């Protein structure tokens, strides 16, 4: 049986994602994720390079878009890999409030007013 070549930065995203091209619940670009104050270096060492870089980066909470940029991974692939890490409980999604929530809008207003 022919061996598949190892992962390379030029490998197209759907290869790294093992053939999947969509995820069940799309994470929004600004959704905050983190490792939730846990970090398992042994687990990290067992991950593929792309997942590992996401996992390590998420030790500090940040958005999906920031993870994509920091790890130099396209957004779609970033989402898939984050979803995998969410499924095994190694990443957590932080409170995502609906964008039309009045309390959220009021906080935004107060915060932006301070900048004007």
């Amino acid at each position, binding site marked *: 049986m022919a061996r598949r070549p190892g992962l390379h930065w030029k490998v*197209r*995203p*759907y290869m790294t994602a093992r053939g999947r*091209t969509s995820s069940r619940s*799309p994470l*929004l*670009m*600004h*959704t*905050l994720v*983190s490792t*939730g*104050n846990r*970090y398992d270096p042994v687990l990290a060492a067992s991950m593929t390079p792309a997942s590992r870089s996401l996992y390590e980066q998420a*030790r500090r*909470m940040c*958005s999906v*878009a*920031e993870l*994509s*940029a920091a790890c130099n991974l*396209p*957004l*779609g692939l970033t989402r898939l890999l984050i979803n995998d890490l969410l499924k095994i409980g190694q990443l*957590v999604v*932080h*409170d*995502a*409030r609906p*964008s*039309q929530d*009045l309390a*959220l*809008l*009021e*906080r*935004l*207003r*107060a*915060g*932006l*007013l301070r*900048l*004007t």
Partner: protein
Amino acid sequence: MPASSDSRDSHLTGQMTSAKIVIAGGFGVGKTTAVEAISEIPAIRTESWMTAAAAQIDRLDPGIDKVTTTVAMDFGRVTIDDSLVLYLFGTPGQPRFWPMWDDLVRGAVGALVLVDTNHLENSFAAVNYFENDADVPWIVCVNLFHGIQTHELSEVREALTLPPHVPLIAADIREPRNVAHALLAVVNHATERVTAVVPSGVG
């Protein structure tokens, strides 16, 4: 085993929330300038890969050589309070990246569409998009390049055929405070939309 460094911010788990405002408009209208003016970090660039006919193709066949394009967008962040972060995303300008726009706009508080009165046509596509294809509150902001207003807002409204319910403002978006004002107008408009009790079935 020592916990990693001196991180005392245990409040970081759980309560943090994020919100997003999209900054749209045509090429060269100042989207990244606006993001950079107010962002507390230098604008970050993220990329997404798109294929030319993404909507029609359900499987990527290695036998078909499809063109993969990299779409880049810039974004920044503003800390609103100790548990709320606002992300600002600039749209990729080219109209062929509409699927990317859908993705960007999903879950946004609202959108700020920038226009340049000397090149109004550059922002037609964006205005069209928010009028017809998106469901987020949006406002239009005339970017006062060099602080000079060259056209009356009423003329701009007419030229863009903006519906009366879409707020239209003017600001020199190189100024952080002006960007804050413009974003505030987006938030106010979003708030009005939530509080206005619209009976369902009208339309």
